[in-house]
């Protein structure tokens, strides 16, 4: 009996040698997770401002996007105090905001620093959701330099 299949899980691969630090991945992630899906409204009007689930990290000339890699052994899922952090059958790790109490145990155990805190009165964990079953996540689709690619599509 298997509850999820590692092979079904598609990961986003990061190629740091070709990332130019343009942060378009963040922009399109914000747009994707906005209510209006309108770039101007998403950035200027929506409250709370939608959050990017990918963070471009930089040091000197080095840059790359960091987001959840849906670990084979997910520390966040194991450590979650409420069961809000769960792996779905397709391998994706998701937060059930209704059950998240914002204790930040996941933030404390994520080795990638890929789980963020939402803003507002009852903050919850926020992470990459692979654009909810989209064929190609927004960050990958809009990376101008193919620094973000889907696993299995490397050669493309």
């Amino acid at each position, binding site marked *: 009996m298997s509850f999820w299949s590692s092979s079904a899980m598609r990961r986003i691969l990061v190629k740091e040698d070709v990332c130019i630090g343009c942060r378009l991945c963040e922009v399109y992630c914000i747009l994707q997770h906005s209510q209006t899906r309108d770039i101007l409204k998403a950035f200027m009007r929506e409250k709370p401002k939608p959050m990017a689930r990918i963070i471009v990290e930089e040091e000197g000339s080095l840059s790359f996007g960091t987001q959840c890699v*849906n670990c084979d052994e997910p520390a966040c899922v194991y450590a979650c105090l409420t069961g809000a952090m769960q792996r779905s059958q397709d391998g994706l790790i998701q937060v059930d905001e209704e059950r998240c109490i914002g204790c930040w*145990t996941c933030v404390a*155990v994520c080795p990638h620093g890929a789980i963020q805190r939402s803003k507002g009165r009852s903050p919850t964990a926020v992470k990459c959701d692979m654009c909810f079953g989209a064929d190609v996540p927004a960050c990958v689709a809009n990376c101008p330099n193919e620094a973000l690619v889907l696993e299995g599509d490397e050669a493309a």
Partner: protein
Amino acid sequence: MKRFDYLMIGNSAAAIGAVEAVREAGADGSIGIVSNEPYHVYSRPRISERITRHAPVKSLSYRPPDFYRKHAVTPILGVAAVEIALKQKTVRLENGRELGYGKLLLATGARPTHLPIPGIDLDGVHYFTTLHQADGLARDLANIRHAVVIGAGPIGIQAAETLTRTGVKVTVVEALDRILALAVDEHASSLVRKLFQKHGVSILTSSRVQEIHGSAAGRACGVTLVDGTRMDCEAVIVAAGVSPRTDLAESVGIRVKAGIVVDSSMQTSEPDVYAAGDVAETLDLLTGQKRLMPIWPNAYMQGRTAGLAMARLRGVSYPGSISINATHFFEFPVISAGCIDPSDGCTELVDLNKRTGYYRRIVLKQNVPVGIVMAGDAVDRAGLVVDLIKNKVDASAFLDKLARPDFNNAHLPPELRETKRGGKTHEGH
């Protein structure tokens, strides 16, 4: 007599971790869960919501409603296991029923430590570790204007916040010289103390309750402290630590020290009997010593390890845990992990902002991070440093960057980044 290939006594983090691991390992044997609590598995840290917002029990579930069915588990709930027969491999329940087992997991957890003071059995004396206890407190709430909380550990402090949110005046009495003494360091302790005081909570440290007074009706009506101070109250919440529920194990001679003694696969001194969670000893990854570490994530990981071993996966070995406490106090986040009381030879990186409460402290031993305390916005990316602690990474090469508030993956050596990517991060099996 019903016989289960895997029988779990307990229905919380450790037992669920074991069930999920047994099934993940591909074992399809029968699983039974026995618990004295009558509920579908719930999240203990959320019991306060029964009081603050009358949350339905269902909404506090730790796993979806179809969890037992999906994992082919027979839940036997609301009935306690009272005796083990090791030779016959059976467990007797309080209703007389007997269950056979192939492998047994003791995940009986911990109970609030008994406080031997006069008045401890009066009405109006509450505990705050189970849903049932939280409901008892919720039912009593209308009678309570002032409550005394004994103990300022994570449970006592959560009880104090919960009651304060419902408008009850709270006094916390703590024997040690600061609150959350075992969970956070002095600075974070004082940050949280000030926050509670701002919310109207009185906190008395280096003090003890000597006696709880009863009214003519047999209800708690006040306390006297060791220094002779007397105060009126309508309720006392006892949160003076927890003790492992080792009775079942001890009664059949299973080896117990601070908790049930287990090997690296969570097997007890008895073959086919495993233990995990608050009832079992934990190997402290940093000191190499066995000790009690009654925290939820540790219970789950121990249960998971036990489950894999029970499903006969070979070479299952748990490298040990570091203590991790993460929570928020009146929305103010605090995370601590590992060694927070540095011994000789330790160095520290500290950054703080008095106005915002921002606090970032990393303790290192010979340039290897061994502990963190982070508060306010400093908690973001705490896991990056916790990962260095778990993997005992020498940070000499990037010490200056580790000190920075914006410390991130780009500051790590390339080979470390490469290891982490691809999601093969090891949680220790």
